[in-house]
């Protein structure tokens, strides 16, 4: 009862109240959302973070306790976590504080650089893996080459404005058809899943167990 039925009733009831909010302009339907729901969801909002912090702390303390390979680095992760948080509480979170310094000079460069590694991998893959093995793959590669040339100034300098026009045509016509076909499939799929949740048929989000 408390484990599954009540949460399920909550989803279905709230779900239909939300349907009402969308379709019924009456004050009661609107107040449900603007007056009641907003305050409640706001009061719930900070607590999801506790789960994230506990989860990271548990994962790393377990690694340290069990002395798994490279466990020493887990100490670093925990120091990073708690020192950054403490610096925000002690010195504040405004511009010019140690908290902001850590973020700008440690988090930002690392985050940006980690993703920039992908440029090297895509160059290596271009050399070693992108092969015109079939007619379909050839179409894909040729389209990609045209788009790559049409986006950069040098492509237009070499091949003239025609390459930019051709790129724009590819994006506006065959690409549009392709992405719309896929988007309609995804759109219908997501509506179907939402509808299954709303009607209480889909329950996997409640997790396993009783």
């Amino acid at each position: 009862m408390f484990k599954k039925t009540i949460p399920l009733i909550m989803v279905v009831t709230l779900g239909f109240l939300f349907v009402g909010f969308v379709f019924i302009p009456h004050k009661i339907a609107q107040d449900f959302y603007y007056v009641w729901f907003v305050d409640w969801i706001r009061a719930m909002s900070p607590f999801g973070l506790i789960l994230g912090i506990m989860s990271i702390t548990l994962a790393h303390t377990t690694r340290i306790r069990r002395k798994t390979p490279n466990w020493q680095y887990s100490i670093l992760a925990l120091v990073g976590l708690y020192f950054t948080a403490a610096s925000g509480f002690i010195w504040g979170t405004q511009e010019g504080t140690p908290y902001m310094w850590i973020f700008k000079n440690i988090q930002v460069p690392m985050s940006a650089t980690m993703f920039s590694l992908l440029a090297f991998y895509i160059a290596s893959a271009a050399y070693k893996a992108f092969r015109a093995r079939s007619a379909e793959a050839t179409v894909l590669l040729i389209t990609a080459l045209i788009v790559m040339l049409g986006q950069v100034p040098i492509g237009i300098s070499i091949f003239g404005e025609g390459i930019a026009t051709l790129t724009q045509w590819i994006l506006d016509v065959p690409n549009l058809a392709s992405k719309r076909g896929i988007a309609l499939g995804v759109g219908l799929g997501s509506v179907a899943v939402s509808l299954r949740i709303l009607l209480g048929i889909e329950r996997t989000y409640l997790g396993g167990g009783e």
Partner: protein
Amino acid sequence: MDKNNNIFQKIQQLDRRYIYIILAVAIILPLIFPYNSKTYTTKPAENIYRMIDSFAPVFPEGATEEEKDAIAMAHDKAVMLAFWHDASTMSELFPMELSIIRHCFERRIKFFTFTIFATSAPIIDMAINEVKKSDPEKYGNKKSGEDYVNFGYKVSSLLLPIIFGMGEDISDAMDIDAEGRKVSSLPIMTNIKNYNDMNLVIDFSASSAGTYWIYYARPRFGVNVAVGVTAVMAADTYPQLQTGQFIGMLAGMKGAAEYEKLVDVFASTQREFSSEILRNEAEPIISGDTNLPYPFRQARIGMNAQSIAHILIIVFILIGNVGFFVQKHLQKNDN
């Protein structure tokens, strides 16, 4: 196996680290030795520019600075810039944000910023400060709460309440700004109530996050939505561009370069948008007679490096495929 086969095999088995070095050099050189190149603007970028520009207050001829201040403050149009990305995609999205902020400052258009990612919150400050710092004489006096306001970080579970709430009352939905001030008490909110006044939202993200606005805000409140996306997401955005759900799009560093150009050519010289001028006027980004600070031409100089890197990648693809086909042909002959 014959000699030819060995060469092509060797080409295919080249150590990836050599490829990395070649790519790095191809990017570093054009950045150290920048050159002028022409940026071709596209309709989706021009549409964003023109809509933002249409929000600018009109000043009577001969108005004093004080009068202009009063008119700008009372103006009932504003733009929302939603920074929904972290530092990982800053290279593509940050120059767009700088250019749009610069556009708003130049044309005295009120703008708001907010994010649902904790790690984006300082990026908003960085963008605003970078623009102010780059030209202190022009933008140094822009004030938070008067010319713009940063609503800061809002927990992501509050996204829908915020999107819907702004349809009723922005001050109420946002509640407090990044500096902890009550939004309703800020002078910038004079005559700005909801989406009727803040009629353009530009969402910067590395995902399809812009669809939140067209699912939840546009059908109900009729707000105009535009996106600044990473190039990875750009091709997927065309269905929504065609239907007009997105009024415009900036795609990756190229989109940022386009907007940089538009702001340089029109907003910074207080001229109206004109395709004619765009087509015919020269666009110096590095010559001696331009004193443009680096952040305002960062994307266009970046596009020089992008040009060389694209040619390199195309050469890589061609070499790899020639090696593949020659080897395949030789193997077929051997059999």
